[in-house]
């Protein structure tokens, strides 16, 4: 019922507007088209200046309302991200000045040079000096921006510092898998045909001994405050993107082609809770590349902690290898050979099933 009422009201409004418009057209024909054209010209000229003033007030008001809701008031949560922010402010200053000036000129000219009988237009087809000025000034300004940008770009995409930790991040529909290299500091090889959703989500190759201490987790990634970390990013199915807005970085996860990104977390999650004043604050990993119908729910969490807490967390984690071969676990040394065989058979059976 309300729907019909709404439609009726809308139609009514349309009809009223149309009738008024129609009537004003008749009036203008009666008044003489030239006269009414000039009246309309005055009205629209005036509206130009109204729009300019209201628009600039709107820009200010919008900033007042929403600046606090962006990431900018708290600054970047990564050391490298600070460069993004400072570059952002420089770019904002340059484009902001140009924006305000050109919009004022545009609407002011439109208002000022509206048609009057008195004015004789200035026949001004070209001026090399002027054109040269507004070719060179933008070119120079942009060169500066390019230089700032590229210096940061090469830092972001270059090699991380020597002491950087390495973590592998793998996207899948719709979640994140993390792999830490374990005590040996190196990742074992993997192959996508070995993937087994039950106990080998990354398809690690167990023949490669380096894989035996690799720790595989899902959903939450632990990082140490102040220690640079290099992410090796990949995907198991379609293209995803590791979006780290608080750290000001993002990188695609492409199946078959590993990508990398590195940064240095500045604050622990706990500290960020205080800085932002939000007790529920978490570093979220948002998938920023359309990856299917669950795209919007593809969330990961990064816990940035102090070294001690990190060590405690790591000590509790069991390598993926030991999930698959529990008998190899030194903590459960009593396992007998039959169990191992059984586990291996079960593993192969599961793999075969996955392939089907």
């Amino acid at each position: 019922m309300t729907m019909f009422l709404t439609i009726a009201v809308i139609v009514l409004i349309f009809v009223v507007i149309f009738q008024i418009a129609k009537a004003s057209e008749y009036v203008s024909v009666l008044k003489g088209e030239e006269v009414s054209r000039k009246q309309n010209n005055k009205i629209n000229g005036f509206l130009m200046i109204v729009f300019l003033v209201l628009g600039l007030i709107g820009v200010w008001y919008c900033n007042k309302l929403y600046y606090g809701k962006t990431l900018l008031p708290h600054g970047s949560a990564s050391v490298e991200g600070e460069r993004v922010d400072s570059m952002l402010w420089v770019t904002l200053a340059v484009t902001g000045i140009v924006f305000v000036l050109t919009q004022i000129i545009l609407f002011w000219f439109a208002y000022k040079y509206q048609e009057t009988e008195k004015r004789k237009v200035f026949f001004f087809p070209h001026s090399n000096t002027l054109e040269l000025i507004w070719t060179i000034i933008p070119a120079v300004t942009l060169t500066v921006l390019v230089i700032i940008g590229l210096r940061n770009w090469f830092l972001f995409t270059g090699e991380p510092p020597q002491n950087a930790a390495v973590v592998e991040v793998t996207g899948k529909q719709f979640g994140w898998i993390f792999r830490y290299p374990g005590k040996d500091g190196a990742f074992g090889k993997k192959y996508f045909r070995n993937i087994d959703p039950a106990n080998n989500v990354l398809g690690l190759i167990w023949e490669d001994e380096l894989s035996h201490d690799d720790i595989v987790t899902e959903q939450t990634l632990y990082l140490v405050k102040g220690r640079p970390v290099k992410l090796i990013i990949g995907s198991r199915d379609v293209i995803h993107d590791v979006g780290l807005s608080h750290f000001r970085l993002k990188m695609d996860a492409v199946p078959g082609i590993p990508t990398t990104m590195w940064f240095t977390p500045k604050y622990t999650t706990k500290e960020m809770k205080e800085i932002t004043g939000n007790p529920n604050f978490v570093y979220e990993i948002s998938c920023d590349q359309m990856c299917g119908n669950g795209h919007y729910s593809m969330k990961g969490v990064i816990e940035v902690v102090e070294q001690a807490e990190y060590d405690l967390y790591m000590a509790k984690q069991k390598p993926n290898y030991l999930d698959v071969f529990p008998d190899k676990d030194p903590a459960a040394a009593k396992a007998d050979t039959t169990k191992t065989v059984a586990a291996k058979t079960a593993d192969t059976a599961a793999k075969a099933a996955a392939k089907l």
Partner: protein
Amino acid sequence: MSNEAVLHAHSDLAHGAHDDHHHEHHHHETFISKYVFSQDHKMIAKQFLITGMVWAILGGLMSVFFRLQLGYPESTFPWLEDILGKWAKGGRISDEAYYALVTTHGTVLVFFVLTAGLSGTFANFLIPLQIGARDMASPFMNMLSYWFFFAASIVMLSSMFVETGPFSGGWTAYPPLSALGDASKGSKTGMDLWLIAMALFVVSSLLGGLNYIATILNMRTKGMSMTRMPLTIWALFFTAVLGVLSFPVLFSGFILLIFDRNFGTSFYLSDIFITGVGALPNEGGSAILYQHLFWFLGHPEVYIILLPAMGMASEILSVNSRKPIFGYMAMVGSLFAIAILAFLVWAHHMFVTGLNPFLGSIFVLLTLLIAVPSAIKVFNWLTTLWRGNIRFTPGMLFAIGFVSLFISGGLTGIWLGNSALDIHLHDTYFVIAHFHIVMGVASMFGMFAGVYHWFPKMYGRYLNNSLAYIHFWVTLAGAYLIFWPMHYEGLAGMPRRYYDYSNWESFKQFLELNRFISTVAIIVFAVQLLFLFNFFYSIFKGRKVTTQNPWQSNTLEWTTPINPGHGNWPGEIPEVHRWAYDYGKDGHDFIPQTTPVGADESHH
């Protein structure tokens, strides 16, 4: 001798003697040949325009639907279920439907409205009329161009009614998502139809584009040298060149995608394990290859959309300022520079794909270089207004609006083109705000400006001015109210293409803003319906045009009769003696291109 007299003299001559170009008196046109399979460029232009309008309404309506979801994620609208059926069970759009709507909105608006609807309409309508030709180089190919577009439209429309739904992987259709039906329902039959529609669309574009280029290069009337052409024609020329050189590359990308989807090849696929399906046999492909092929069209496409709007805005600004366009040669030069650079910047869409950083840096440089010709254009437009005598016709209002939006959206391009900032802002609402303002709304404004300016030539009647003023002011204010705040969402890192933000601690603070944006979007959409009503009503009932040259313009289309027949000029095609922008010269308000240069005229 006045232009009128030239025409009449020739007309009489033609009637008396031989007449091989006169159609209207001699052979009778049927309804089919006049309105359906027409080979008259003016009718084909109208066909493109009206088909584009239908798509604009459908695409706009889709955005209203998904904006409802974004603005009111917790609410239900039972009437949505009446319209969308199982896609909106219980009155809330499903995530699947949301992504299908977003994808189709993008595809349709970019290709069917702002490519076919914009350059299809105005290239067809204006090229022969403004260069002084009776029709296109090949009217038949021109007709085919429209009907291929029509076929593409039908196939795209039909994809919305298949059981698994239309394609839902974003308008860019990145594989593997678009290649694997198991990864997303929309990548099943819907994607096949999407690809067929797009392939037909490419054919349509190529047929049109080749024709536009051939016509402009070969069929200009006597005296119409390239440097005397109106800027509209220059813009449409570069648009056609861009399309002809880049659409085939997109097509090749689609062909490989079709092979990967149907014939077991691995151009784009490698190392894929789909949950519930298992490991796929494909190895060795590169998903990034598609992105290169796609954006090799995708970026020029932005200019395919924008250049016609720039051309029309230049023309309309000059006519209604009663002043020559400032820096004609610089305008042509900057169009040329943009057209060249358009081919050299595609990878700026791919900064975060793992692209080689050095390659990325080259693309940063080339991308920011585009700001230079863009700046030249903006300052030239501003100088064109300076010390003019401005008439705020509806076309002029939209042209001014175009400049304002082009500035606003162009400046954020400087942010995104710089890879070290893009790494933060990529795929957030900042990008949405940027390209909707600079490409979407600005080009839409160029299109509206064109429609209002040339409607009298198209239909021999005027659009209602009061409705046009309402249309303009509400749309301009609405465009800024919708897209300006989105920059702030982007600066909060809010990703695009999310169905629901309520589970995200980092992004859920914008619910109220999203509600506001959705409300404005609905109002703006309603005002577009008002424009449509004005358009169709005025075709039949609008105030009649009584003078041949209602805007007192210099260009050739206003030397044709008020309702020109097929062949445009009843007599001989007029000869051109000057450029198109002699407004306010030597005390004359305007001097049409057909007026010979007087002995006492000043040189500039």
